[in-house]
C-alpha cells in the first residue's frame, strides 16, 4: 500500500502541468537579472506580447558566444566593440540601444587608496595601483571586465601583482569576494545597489563619462541560424523600445535611486 502511494506521488510529480506559451531565449548580462529589473519587465512582456522570455544570465562574453552559436534568439549585452563584431560577423542582424546606467568604483569605506579624490576613473585606478591596494577583477571577459581593462589601458597601467586579483566569476561572486577581502572593485551601479551583502564597502568614485554603460539588444540572424524565433525577437525589440518599456525601466528604483535610463530611439 505504502508503495502504491509512493508511486502515485511520483507519477503526479511527473505529470506537473506545463503552461505552453511562445518562448524566446535571450542571453542577458548579470546586471539585468541581478538588479531585479528582469522581474519587472518579464511579466509585462508576457502580458503585452504573449511572449515567455527565457533568460540565460551570463557575462556579456558568454552571451555573445551563445548568439554566435545560435543557441539563443537574442542578446542584451553591454560591450560595444564585441557587439559590433557580432553584427559584422553576420550572427546578429543589427544592434539596437535600449538603456544605460553607469559603472561605479567600490571599495572599503575608509578608502585607503584615496580614490574619492581622483579626477577621472583612470586616475582612481592609478591610485589603487600606486597604493598596491587589493583590486578584484571579474576576469571573465564580461562587459564589466572589458570596461575595467579599457580603464587600466587609459591609465597606462598593466595591472599585475599580488594586489590584482582576477576571480573569473560573475558580478555577484566577485562582489562577495571584494567584501570578504576588503578590495576595490568595478561594478555596474544597478547590481551594487541591489546587492544584498555590501559589508563595509561603499561607492567611492562615479560620474566620469568613461564609466557610461550602454545596454543594447541584438537579435540573432535567422539567415545564419534558421531555427531562431526571429518573429518573436522582432516583437520583443518592438516592446523593448516602446513607451511602455520606457515607463517601466525609468520607473525602476531601489532605495529611491533610478537604476537604468531608457534611451532607445524610434526606427
Amino acid at each position, binding site marked *: 500500500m505504502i508503495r502504491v502511494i509512493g508511486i502515485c506521488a511520483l507519477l503526479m510529480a511527473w505529470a506537473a502541468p506545463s503552461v505552453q506559451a511562445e*518562448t524566446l*531565449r535571450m542571453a542577458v548580462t548579470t546586471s539585468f537579472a541581478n538588479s531585479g529589473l528582469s522581474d519587472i519587465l518579464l511579466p509585462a512582456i508576457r502580458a503585452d506580447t504573449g511572449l515567455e522570455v527565457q533568460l540565460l544570465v551570463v557575462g556579456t562574453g558568454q552571451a555573445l558566444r551563445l548568439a554566435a552559436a545560435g543557441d539563443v534568439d537574442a542578446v542584451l549585452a553591454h560591450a560595444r566593440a564585441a557587439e559590433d563584431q557580432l553584427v559584422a560577423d553576420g550572427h546578429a542582424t543589427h544592434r539596437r540601444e535600449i538603456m544605460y546606467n553607469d559603472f561605479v568604483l567600490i571599495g572599503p569605506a575608509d578608502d585607503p587608496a584615496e580614490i574619492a579624490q581622483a579626477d577621472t576613473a583612470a586616475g582612481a585606478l592609478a591610485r589603487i595601483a600606486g597604493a598596491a591596494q587589493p583590486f578584484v577583477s571579474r576576469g571573465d571577459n564580461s562587459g564589466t571586465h572589458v570596461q575595467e581593462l579599457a580603464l587600466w589601458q587609459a591609465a597606462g597601467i598593466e595591472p599585475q601583482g599580488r594586489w590584482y586579483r582576477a576571480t573569473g566569476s560573475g558580478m555577484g561572486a566577485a562582489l562577495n569576494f571584494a567584501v570578504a577581502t576588503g578590495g576595490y572593485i568595478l561594478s555596474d551601479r544597478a547590481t551594487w545597489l541591489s546587492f544584498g551583502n555590501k559589508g563595509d564597502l561603499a561607492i567611492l568614485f562615479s560620474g566620469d563619462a568613461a564609466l557610461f554603460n550602454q545596454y543594447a539588444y541584438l537579435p540573432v540572424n535567422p539567415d545564419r541560424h534558421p531555427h531562431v524565433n526571429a518573429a518573436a525577437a522582432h516583437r520583443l525589440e518592438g516592446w523593448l523600445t516602446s513607451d511602455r518599456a520606457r515607463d517601466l525601466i525609468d520607473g525602476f528604483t531601489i532605495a529611491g535611486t533610478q537604476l537604468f535610463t531608457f534611451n532607445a530611439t524610434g526606427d
Partner: protein
Amino acid sequence: MAAKLAVSLDGELVEITIRSLQVTITATLIAALIGLPLGAWLAVSRFPARRYIIALLNALMGLPPVVVGLIVYILLSRAGPFGVLGLLFTPTAMVIAQVIIITPLIASIAHQAMRELWADYRDLLISLNATRMQRIATLVWDGRRTLLTAKLAGFGRGIGEVGAIMIVGGNIDNATRVLTTAIALETGKGDFALALALGFILIGLAVAVNLGIHMLSRTEQGSLW
C-alpha cells in the same frame, strides 16, 4: 529566519524542488538501467581488459561535473553535432549530463557488491549450468537491496550537483532552474539567507528521499529471509 523565507517562497519553490527531483530521479533510473547490469556483468565475466575497465570506472566516479557539462554543452549546442535536436537549455540536457556523471558511480558500487555475492553464488550457478544472462539476472535480483545503496549514492551525487546542470541547463527561471542553481544564483545576489534556506531544503529533500526509499523497501523484508 531562513525557514520563514523558505516557507514564504511557496509556488516557485515547489516548482524548482519538483524539477530537481524530476531531473535527478530520471537520471538515476536511466543510470541504474545501464550501471547495474554493467557492474554485475563485470563481476561474473573474466576477460583480459576487465581490470582496466574496472579501474576506469573507479576513476570516472570522480568525473568533474563541470567538465561533463562542458562536453555535453558542446555536443548539444546548435553549432555542435547534436545541435539539430534543440536540446540545449532543456531539462533533457540536464538529465543527459547527470546520467554521464552518475553511471560510473552506480556501476562501480554495483560491481563491488556483486563481486562478493558472486563469490557466494558462483559454484551454485555454475553447477546449475546457468547462462551468463541468467547469472547476471540472479545476482541483480538477489542483491537488489545492496544495489539500492548504489542507486541512492547516484541520486545523492546528482541532487547536489551544480557544475554540469548550470552549464547545460542555463538556470532559466520557470524552465531549467533547480535547487542547486537557485542557490548559486542567490549567493551571487548576496542574498545569503535565502541561499541558505534553499540549501536546507535541498538537504532535507535528500534525507526525505533516502528515508522514503528505505520505508518502501522494508515492505518486502518478510519475504527476503
